[in-house]
């Protein structure tokens, strides 16, 4: 198994970078953000208190698995657009703030990754989920750049949203992520810190690919 972790703030380009890197490396790909979004989705539809035993039990009993290297299934059903709505986007930080939920998602993510050659992306992968990973990357980008990317992403999926709102969403998530008590967003001590500002996706993927191939030799 070879674990490559990609952490970084919202909109740093994690998802596209991870997906493309995994493809180039021939690795599987897990987006743990999707696991938290799935948890948020379940919560929105459960009417249960976030910290209630019932909801935590629901989370424990939820099964996730990867098919074809990158398609995430929840309880046997493929996850799609339903977890990528602004509605889910608004509450996902709140859900991810609950230590018990983080613990459950961390466990599930480890189980999914176990024994695989896999790129795992999220916010605390190199520090908490897979701290023993061989290669750890921490992506950064300016707030404007990140808001711009997220805005384009929403637009391309036909979601009606204002640029200003997206900037606020990003700023709010940054604040919550870097100050939260459980697994605050910060690079692992041995992470490669990589700024994606003013680089195209292709440039980022190519540079990281070379860095990773070099590091993998010593895993």
């Amino acid at each position, binding site marked *: *198994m070879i674990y490559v972790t990609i952490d970084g703030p919202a909109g740093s380009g994690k998802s596209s970078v991870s997906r493309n890197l995994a493809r180039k490396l021939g690795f599987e790909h897990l987006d743990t953000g999707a696991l938290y979004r799935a948890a948020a989705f379940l919560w929105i539809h459960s009417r249960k208190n976030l910290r209630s035993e019932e909801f935590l039990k629901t989370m424990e009993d939820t099964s996730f698995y990867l098919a074809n290297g990158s398609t995430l299934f929840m309880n046997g059903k493929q996850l799609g657009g339903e977890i990528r709505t602004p509605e889910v986007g608004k509450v996902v930080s709140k859900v991810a703030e609950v230590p018990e939920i983080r*613990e459950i998602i961390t*466990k599930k993510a*480890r189980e999914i990754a*176990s*024994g*695989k*050659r896999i790129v795992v992306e999220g916010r*605390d992968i*190199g*520090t*908490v989920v*897979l*701290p*023993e*990973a*061989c290669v750890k990357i921490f992506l950064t980008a300016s707030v404007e750049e990140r808001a711009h990317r997220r805005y384009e992403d929403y637009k391309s999926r036909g979601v009606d949203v204002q640029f200003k709102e997206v900037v606020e969403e990003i700023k709010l998530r940054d604040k919550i992520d870097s100050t939260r008590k459980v*697994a*605050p967003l*910060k690079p*692992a*001590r*041995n992470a490669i810190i990589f700024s994606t500002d003013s680089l195209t996706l292709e440039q980022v993927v190519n540079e990281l690919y070379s860095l990773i191939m070099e590091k993998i030799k010593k*895993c």
Partner: protein
Amino acid sequence: MLKIEVAEDIGFCFGVKHAVEVVEELLLKGEDVYITGDLIHNEDEMLRLKSMGLKSFDVANKWPNISESTVVIRAHGVPLGILEELQKKAKRVVNATCTVVSAVGELIKKEKAEGFEIFLYGREGHAEVEYLKSVVGDLKVINQEHSKIDFYSSKIALFSQTTMGIDGFKEISKKFLNGEKLFSSFHIHNTICAVTLEREREVKELAKANDLCLIVGGKKSSNTKKLYEIAKSLNQNAHMILNVSEIDEKWFDSVESVGICSGTSTPARIIDGIVEWLSNLKN
């Protein structure tokens, strides 16, 4: 902020490192590689090697067709009868038995030839003991569970499994000396591996100096278990874990310092991961 103290000697010992490198090299060359049982006693590392293509089988069950395969002899060694059979059936056999273990085998053989009755301080069922038993047919395995030691010869040679604890070995030696029966010669061969002795010394210091002690290693790893038993006897807050996923955050509720040490088959990356995880625990 949690104080984290890591033992100086961590990661693979040279015997384990060699065995892992042998397997990796064969797999990279594209060979079909088999191991009997576990190459080393660490589940994480075995998972990694298996994900690279290493296959294993249990010699007690039906053997797969290995006529086109390379079989690597595990770091603990395999009984000589099995080795012979493997050499007959496999395309190639590569011996990755730890040199410390095979040296013990040679020494036992020599003493046996000199007419000594051979005793081994160790644990029945451990792969290394199974190998050493095959070197000398009537080798007797002893440990603290034996209240009385019977011997027939007047020439006795005592050895130790390479991963046992030194205090226990001294105790057993004394049992021979203090017994009622007399002997003309009593050879005590301290064959405990120097690396595990050094780690034993370190774990004692770490367990005493810290509020909590983590011993990292595989469930079947004899030398990890030994470190854990030593740590537990000195510090109630000692835990044996395979990796970060087995840590319970609650252990650290009223803990200010943690000492970490590991068995000789624990990859260094697992220790790095635990340190990373712990340094994010109490900020």
